[in-house]
């Protein structure tokens, strides 16, 4: 997952992530240490810009992030999220749908939620990031649904937004992208089959003829990951 996320980032991009983001933090740092030395990444609530991540913490607001190039106050981070500076936003949700919308409000009807979610936090800013990458620690029919009950972060919706939308989805099973604004399988992680993915997805995923295998980390990437994350914070995140 880390490798797929890291390779989804380009040099000179500005990348931002929110809560529960050991995985995108690690991916961003690995990208920076390999193919994207001019990447800037911002760890949400802490405001840490380009933290060295030695070691990678579990919490996005941890003071281990303070060894960084700047601790940018959160209100200023939010201002930045509204500016065209952000190239990539990492997103997720209780529910993710075929068009890439994410939901953290809850599951059920308004006023009669079966599951009250934590709340939408920064996901509404997906409408303004150049593009966004969805990552999910689980892949099953409960979280990959035909249509989200509530839109916290808009994917390809009917209304026009500034963002070009979601570009990639990474789960413990596979990597997906979008074709005509609908989710499409792109590559399978080792030992995962197309059937395992379709069985665990609550909608008809586009399955192209040339589904590849998700590339494995290089020796260099592995070395960085092990050094940055000796505690296994990123691995622990995956259910």
């Amino acid at each position, binding site marked *: 997952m880390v490798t797929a996320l890291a390779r989804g980032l380009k040099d000179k991009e500005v990348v931002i992530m929110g809560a*529960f983001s050991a995985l995108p933090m690690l991916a961003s740092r690995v990208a920076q240490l390999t193919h994207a030395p001019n990447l800037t990444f911002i760890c949400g609530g802490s405001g840490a810009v380009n933290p060295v991540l030695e070691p990678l913490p579990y919490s996005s*607001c941890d003071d281990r992030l*303070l060894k960084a190039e700047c601790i940018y106050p959160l209100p200023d981070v939010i201002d930045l999220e509204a500016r065209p500076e952000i190239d990539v936003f990492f997103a997720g949700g209780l529910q993710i749908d075929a068009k890439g919308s994410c939901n953290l409000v809850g599951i059920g009807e308004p006023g009669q939620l079966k599951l009250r979610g934590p709340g939408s936090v920064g996901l509404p800013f997906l409408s303004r990031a150049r593009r966004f990458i969805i990552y999910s620690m689980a892949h099953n029919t409960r979280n990959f649904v035909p249509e989200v009950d509530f839109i916290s972060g808009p994917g390809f919706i009917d209304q026009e937004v500034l963002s070009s939308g979601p570009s990639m989805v990474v789960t413990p099973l596979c990597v997906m992208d979008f074709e005509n604004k609908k989710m499409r399988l792109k590559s399978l992680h080792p030992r995962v089959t197309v059937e395992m993915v379709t069985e665990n997805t609550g909608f008809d995923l586009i399955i192209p003829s040339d589904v590849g295998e998700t590339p494995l980390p290089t020796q260099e990437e592995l070395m960085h990951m092990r050094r940055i994350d000796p505690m296994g914070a990123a691995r622990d995140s995956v259910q």
Partner: protein
Amino acid sequence: MAREEKVIGVDEAVERFVQDGCVLGVGGMHMHNNAMAVIREIIRQKKRIKRLVTSPSACTNADMLIGAGLVEEIYCSYVGFEHLGLALNFRKFAESGQLRVRECDEAFSVYSLRGGASSLPFHPLPKGLETTSVPKLNQEDYKVTKDPFTGEDVLCVRSVQPDVSIVHCQKADAYGNAIFEGSKFTDFDMIKASDKVILQVEEVVPNEYVLQKSHRIDVPGMLVDAIIDAPFGCHPTASHKYYTYDEDHLKEYLKASKEDFSVYLDKYVYGIKTNEDYLEVIGGREKATQLMERDIPW
């Protein structure tokens, strides 16, 4: 005449500045810098909170007040425990309707306080945020006006000015000139927007310390009404650069809030008189040392 100091006891601060039925702001974000010593005292004094205002990501600071049955409604951008899971008191009270949730998002949390801090009647939002479900779920706090320069519709949020806010800083002098030693989160805007401010600190420093680094003082004393000297007062959350969060304790908290939360409250809140007693109950010097001993990269 002598200058008056603002350091007082937590019981006196809560009695004087937290009124029944108030709009209460609580600082900190996720499991960091939650001013728990003051929040526990609010629970002991059973102060009823009309409306709770938090940073974009609230944690036990909100969940514990809710679990104690004291909160009528909350502006909710996020209440949870990040990698440790959902906030179960919040879930229970929200799902059952005992807690009224005013649905919001990070933009609301930030700009409503900034509007309050600047005495603006409302605060516009950047374009795009009208596309989510949030403004539709909360038409009381999100409303549309016209951009007077283009005539276009613009979504706005209500400005928020808490009656009193509870914020944790690492250091302050006796007059309230204070320093955040790590992340500031949205605490500074909360302080600016609030009518009264109770500041919980790890340590009270001499005024001379402040004078030597004036351009690194984050909060001028005139904004602070009471200072609570509470070392380890954020437990079970972290205080940046002082100690980390107590993961074992937070897991015990989450387990209790799944089962019978009153057991937790009896043991750690109602049964406790002073900050020193609390530190004993959570594990004393051994626990404190454990939370402080870390590989610190800075």
